[in-house]
C-alpha cells in the first residue's frame, strides 16, 4: 500500500495541479497568517524579557520606582534588609540620538566596578577611564557598526531638553548573554549618568540577589516594609506579567484576526479536497473491489492529505516569518510608542512555534478534508464505481444547516445579553457565532435566491442558477468570500469609526496653536523634562496670549500603571479639551474652581470601576494619594489608565517634578507656522520638537494608521485568499463540469458564450459574497465596537459609516474576482464539444 501511496500521490500532483495547489495554498496561507502573528506576539514579549535578562541577569527581585525614579538613599536600606545577598543600583533613561527623534536608545548607568558577576561585566574597563573620561560609554558592536563608531568616537544624545555628549569607551556584545536584548543600550558609570542627565540622587532600579536558602517572597515583603511607598518590589516573572498585561489586548486582537485568515484558508482546503476526492471515487471503488479495506483506504487518504498539509506547512512557515519580518518595524513602533516597551529588533523562532505551526497546518488540512473523506469512506464499492449521479448532500442539508446556524446565533445572542457580557471574551464568542451563521446560510441562500431565478436565456441568470448545481464546490468558495468581506467590512467600519472619533476628539483636545515637546518624549515620557530656563523663556513669548504646561508622571492603581497629566486647569476653555462622558456636578465644580480632584480616562474608569464623585487612591512616588474623581473623559491615547489634574495640585499631591511639554495659545493675528519657524530658529541646537496644531494632528493620525497597519495586512491576506478561492473554484468547476460545457457547445453555444457563462458564475459568487459579507460586516462592526472594544480597551466609539471606503473595496474585489475568473472562464471556453463522455451530467 505504501508503493501505491507514493504512486497515487505523484499522479495527483501531475493530474490535479490546480486542486493540489489549492489545498497546499489554503494550508500555507492559514499557517502563514497564524504563525506571523504568533512570531510577532512572542517576540514582543521576548524583547522585553530579553531586556530583563540582559540588564538584570540573575537578579531574584527588582526594586522599581513608581515615578519612575526614586531616592538613591533607599539603596543602603535594600542592602540592610535581611535575606539580601547583593544588590546593585541602576540608572535607566531613554534617550534619542540628537536630531533623530525616531532613534531611541537606553542609557544604563551601572556600578561598573561592582565585584558582582553582572551582565555588563565585559563593559568594565581595566583602568579608571569610565570615571575619568566624560561621557564614557560602552556600546554593542551592532550599534557601533550602525553609526560607524570606534573607540573614542563621540556622539550626542538628548533626554528632554538636555543634551549630552558621550564617548565610545568600550564595545561589548551584550547579546551573548541574551540574544534578543536590545543593541541600543549605552552602559556607563552610574554617577556619570546621574550627573549628565540631571538625575543626581535618583535611581530607577535596584536589582537584588537573594541569599542562598532565603525565601524570595519573604525577602520581597521585607523590602516593601523597609522601603515604603513610591517603589514596587517585583520578581522578573511579575515584571514580565505586567508587560504581558499591557500588551494582552493588542496581542489578542492580532491573534483573533489571524484566526479569521486561518478560517478562510480552511475553506480552500475543504473545496479542493472535496473536488479531488469526488473525482477519484472511481479509483477508490477499484481499490475497494480489489480487496482494500476501509481502514486501508482511510490510512491512504489521511497520509495523502497529511502529505499535502506538510507541503503547505513547509511553504506557510517561511511565509509567516516573512510576514512577521515585514511587519516587525510597524508593530515594534506601536509596541514601543503606545505601550512603552522594548522595540522588537530581532525575530526568534522557538521549537514551540514550529510545533504549533505544524499542528495548525495538519489540523487545518484534516479538518478541511474531514467531511469529504467521511463521504467517500461511507460509500460501498459499487456505489463508488457507479456512473449514476452522486447525491448532492449539501443541497439536501442546506435548510437544516441554515437553521442550525440561526439557532447558534440566537442562543449566543441570548446568552450574551443575559449573562455573557460580563465575561471579557464574550465578544469573540459572538463574532464566531456570527461567522458560523453566515457560513451556514450560504448553501440555503444559493438555493433560495439563485435556484429560483427564472430561466429565459443563456445569460447571467443561467450562470447564477448554475451555482446551485455544484453546491459542494461553489458554497465553500462563496462562504470564504463572505467571511473575508465580513471581516474587511467590519474592520473598515471599526477603523473608520475609530478614526472619525479620534479626529473629533483630537480636534477638541488639541486646541493650542503651537506645541513644544522634546525628541525623547515618545519613549522618555515623565523623564523627558524641559529645563527651567527654557520654560521661563518660552512662557514669556510676546506672541503668546497664554501658555499651558504639561507635566507627566506615572503612578500605580492596584498594581497597574497609570499615567497622570498635570495641566493648567485655570486656562479659559481648559475643560473643553477633555470631552466628558460622565461627571459629578459637585466634584466638577470643585475641580474647575478650586482645581482639586482628578478626571480619569474612560478606559481607566471601566477597568477600575471608580465613578465620578468617588475617591481614587493612587500610589505615587511619595506614597498614596487620594483624589476625588470629578469626571470621566474620552481618552483614546492608550488603553490603560490615564488621569488629568491641575498641575499645581499635582505638585502638592505627588511632589515637584519637571515640565514635559508646553503649549502656546497665540495672540490673534499671529501665524502659527511662522511662530513655529521662529521658535525653531531661536532654539536651534536644542532637542525640541516644535509643531503647529496642524502638524501635531497629522502626527496623531500617523500613529493611528501605524497601529492598524498589521490589521490591514491580514485583511489583504484574507481577501487575496477569497478572490483566489473564487478563481480556483471556477477552475475546478470548469473541470468538473466539462461534460456539461461540452453539451452546451454541442447545442450551439459559442466559446464566447461559455466564457461569459463561467465569468457569470464567478460574478454570482462574488455578488453573494459581497451582499452577505457586507451585511455580516456591519453586524461584526457592532460587535467589535460595542462588545469587544469596551471589554478590552474601554473606549466609546460612535459608529461612522465609511461608504466611500466600502465602495472602493467592493470595486477592488469585483475587479479582482473578474480578473481572477478570466483564466478559468477561458479554460472552460476551450472545452472541446467531444468532451461529452459516459459520465453523467
Amino acid at each position, binding site marked *: 500500500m505504501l508503493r501505491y501511496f507514493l504512486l497515487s500521490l505523484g499522479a495527483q500532483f501531475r493530474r490535479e495541479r490546480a486542486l493540489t495547489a489549492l489545498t497546499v495554498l489554503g494550508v500555507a496561507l492559514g499557517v502563514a497568517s497564524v504563525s506571523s502573528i504568533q512570531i510577532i506576539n512572542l517576540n514582543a514579549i521576548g524583547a522585553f524579557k530579553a531586556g530583563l535578562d540582559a540588564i538584570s541577569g540573575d537578579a531574584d527581585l527588582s526594586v522599581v520606582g513608581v515615578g519612575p525614579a526614586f531616592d538613591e538613599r533607599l539603596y543602603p536600606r535594600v542592602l540592610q534588609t535581611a535575606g539580601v545577598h547583593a544588590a546593585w543600583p541602576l540608572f535607566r533613561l531613554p534617550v534619542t540620538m540628537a536630531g533623530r527623534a525616531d532613534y531611541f536608545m537606553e542609557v544604563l548607568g551601572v556600578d561598573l566596578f561592582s565585584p558582582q558577576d553582572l551582565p555588563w561585566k565585559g563593559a568594565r574597563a581595566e583602568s579608571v577611564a569610565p570615571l575619568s573620561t566624560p561621557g564614557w560609554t560602552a556600546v554593542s558592536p551592532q550599534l557601533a557598526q550602525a553609526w560607524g563608531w570606534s573607540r573614542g568616537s563621540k556622539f550626542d544624545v538628548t533626554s528632554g531638553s538636555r543634551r549630552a555628549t558621550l564617548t565610545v569607551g568600550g564595545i561589548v556584545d551584550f547579546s551573548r548573554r541574551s540574544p534578543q536584548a536590545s543593541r541600543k543600550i549605552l552602559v556607563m558609570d552610574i554617577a556619570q549618568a546621574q550627573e549628565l542627565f540631571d538625575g543626581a540622587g535618583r535611581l530607577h532600579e535596584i536589582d537584588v540577589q537573594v541569599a542562598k536558602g532565603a525565601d524570595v517572597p519573604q525577602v520581597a515583603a521585607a523590602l516593601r516594609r523597609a522601603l515604603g511607598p513610591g517603589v514596587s518590589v517585583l520578581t522578573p516573572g511579575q515584571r514580565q506579567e505586567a508587560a504581558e498585561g499591557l500588551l494582552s489586548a493588542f496581542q489578542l486582537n492580532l491573534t483573533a484576526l489571524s484566526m479569521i485568515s486561518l478560517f478562510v484558508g480552511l475553506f480552500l482546503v475543504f473545496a479542493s479536497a472535496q473536488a479531488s476526492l469526488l473525482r477519484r471515487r472511481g479509483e477508490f471503488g477499484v481499490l475497494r473491489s480489489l480487496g482494500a479495506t476501509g481502514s486501508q483506504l482511510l490510512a491512504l487518504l489521511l497520509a495523502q492529505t497529511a502529505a499535502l498539509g506538510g507541503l503547505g506547512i513547509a511553504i506557510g512557515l517561511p511565509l509567516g516569518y516573512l510576514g512577521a519580518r515585514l511587519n516587525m518595524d510597524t508593530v515594534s513602533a506601536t509596541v514601543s510608542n503606545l505601550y512603552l516597551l522594548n522595540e522588537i529588533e530581532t525575530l526568534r523562532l522557538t521549537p514551540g512555534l514550529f510545533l504549533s505551526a505544524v499542528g495548525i497546518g495538519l489540523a487545518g488540512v484534516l479538518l478541511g478534508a474531514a467531511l469529504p473523506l467521511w463521504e467517500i469512506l461511507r460509500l460501498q464499492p459499487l456505489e463508488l464505481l457507479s456512473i449514476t449521479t452522486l447525491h448532492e448532500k449539501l443541497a439536501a442539508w442546506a435548510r437544516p444547516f441554515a437553521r442550525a446556524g440561526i439557532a447558534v446565533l440566537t442562543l449566543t445572542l441570548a446568552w450574551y445579553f443575559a449573562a455573557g457580557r460580563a465575561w471579557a471574551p464574550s465578544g469573540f464568542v459572538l463574532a464566531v457565532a456570527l461567522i458560523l451563521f453566515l457560513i451556514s446560510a450560504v448553501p440555503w441562500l444559493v438555493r433560495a435566491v439563485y435556484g429560483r431565478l427564472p430561466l429565459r436565456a443563456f*445569460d447571467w441568470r443561467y450562470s447564477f442558477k448554475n451555482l*446551485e448545481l455544484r453546491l459542494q464546490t461553489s458554497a465553500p468558495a462563496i462562504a470564504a468570500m463572505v467571511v473575508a468581506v465580513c471581516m474587511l467590512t467590519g474592520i473598515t467600519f471599526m477603523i473608520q469609526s475609530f478614526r472619525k472619533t479620534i479626529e473629533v476628539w483630537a480636534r477638541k483636545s488639541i486646541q493650542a496653536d503651537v506645541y513644544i515637546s522634546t525628541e525623547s518624549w515618545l519613549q522618555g515620557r515623565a523623564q523627558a523634562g524641559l529645563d527651567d530656563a527654557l520654560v521661563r523663556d518660552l512662557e514669556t513669548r510676546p506672541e503668546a496670549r497664554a501658555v499651558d504646561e504639561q507635566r507627566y508622571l506615572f503612578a500605580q492603581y492596584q498594581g497597574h500603571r497609570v499615567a497622570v497629566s498635570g495641566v493648567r486647569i485655570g486656562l479659559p476653555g481648559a475643560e473643553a479639551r477633555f470631552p466628558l462622558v460622565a461627571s459629578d456636578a459637585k466634584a466638577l465644580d470643585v475641580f474647575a474652581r478650586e482645581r482639586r480632584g482628578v478626571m480619569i480616562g474612560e478606559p481607566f474608569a471601566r477597568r477600575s470601576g471608580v465613578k465620578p464623585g468617588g475617591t481614587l487612591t493612587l500610589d505615587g512616588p511619595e506614597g498614596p494619594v487620594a483624589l476625588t474623581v470629578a469626571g470621566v473623559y474620552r481618552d483614546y491615547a492608550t488603553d490603560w489608565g490615564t488621569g488629568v489634574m491641575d498641575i499645581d495640585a499635582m505638585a502638592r499631591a505627588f511632589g515637584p517634578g519637571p515640565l514635559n511639554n508646553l503649549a502656546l495659545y497665540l495672540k490673534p493675528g499671529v501665524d502659527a507656522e511662522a511662530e513655529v519657524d521662529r521658535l525653531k530658529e531661536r532654539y536651534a541646537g536644542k532637542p525640541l520638537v516644535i509643531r503647529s496644531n496642524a502638524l501635531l494632528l497629522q502626527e496623531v493620525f500617523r500613529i493611528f494608521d501605524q497601529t492598524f497597519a498589521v490589521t490591514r495586512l491580514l485583511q489583504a491576506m484574507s481577501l487575496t485568499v477569497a478572490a483566489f478561492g473564487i478563481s480556483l473554484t471556477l477552475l475546478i468547476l470548469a473541470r468538473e463540469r466539462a*461534460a456539461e460545457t461540452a453539451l452546451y457547445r454541442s*447545442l*450551439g453555444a*459559442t466559446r464566447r458564450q461559455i466564457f461569459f457563462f463561467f465569468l457569470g458564475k464567478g460574478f454570482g459568487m462574488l455578488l453573494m459574497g459581497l451582499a452577505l459579507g457586507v451585511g455580516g460586516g456591519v453586524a461584526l462592526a457592532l460587535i467589535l465596537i460595542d462588545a469587544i472594544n469596551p471589554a478590552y480597551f474601554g473606549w466609546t466609539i460612535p459608529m461612522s459609516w465609511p461608504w466611500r471606503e466600502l465602495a472602493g473595496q467592493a470595486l477592488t474585489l469585483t475587479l479582482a474576482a473578474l480578473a481572477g475568473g478570466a483564466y478559468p472562464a477561458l479554460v472552460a471556453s476551450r472545452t472541446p464539444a*467531444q468532451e461529452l463522455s459516459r459520465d453523467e*451530467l
Partner: protein
Amino acid sequence: MLSFRGVSKIYRSSEGAERWALKDVSFDVESGRRVSIIGRSGSGKSTLLHLAAGLDVPSRGEVLLDGRNISSLGDEERTLLRRRRLGLVFQFFHLLPHLSVIDNVALPGFIAHDAPAELAARALRLLARVGLEDRARDPVQKLSGGEMQRVAICRALLAKPALLLADEPTGNLDDANGLLILDLLLEVTREEGAALIFVTHSRELAARADAVWELHSGILAR
C-alpha cells in the same frame, strides 16, 4: 444536405503512432432521408457523427453542409451553423438534472436567445407530440429512460434542424423501449422534414432506416 468528400480522421499518440478513425469516407445524404450506420465499437461511428456535427474537423477531405464546406469554417461559424441546422441525440440522453423537462427542451433556445414566449410554446408543442406535456415541470430525474430520450429528441428538434444526428439513441434502453424510441425518432424527423443519420449496433433497428451503411475500421461500406 450533408456530404462527405474523401474524409479521413487521423489521431496521433504522444509517441507519434497514427490511428485512422476514418479512412477516405465519402457519401451524400439528401434532405429528408433517414440513414443508419452500423459498426462495432471503435469502428469510427462517433467520429463520423462528430465530423458531421462540426464538433471536429477532418484530417483530410471535406464535410459539406448545404453545399458549404464546414471543415474550413472557424469554430464560431461551425457552432452557429450547428445551432441553426443540426440537432443531436445522445445515447446517454445528456439532460441537465438541475433543469426541468421543459427547460431541458428549451435549452438550445436559451443559447440562441430565442424569444421566451415562442420558445416555451414550441417546447410544449414538442413535448405534447411525444406525450410528455404533463411532465413539463417535472425534474428530469423522475423520468424513465425512455421518457428521458423522448425529451432529448424534443430538444434536438427545437430549432427545426435540417439534419438530426443520433449516436446510439436506443443504446441505453431495453429492446421494447428502444424500438419505440426509434420509431418515434423516424416519425418526428419525417414530420419536421429533417434528414436523420443514426448510429446503432442493432441490425434490426438499422433496417428501419431508408439506407443502412456499415463502418468497419473507419471504412464506410454502402
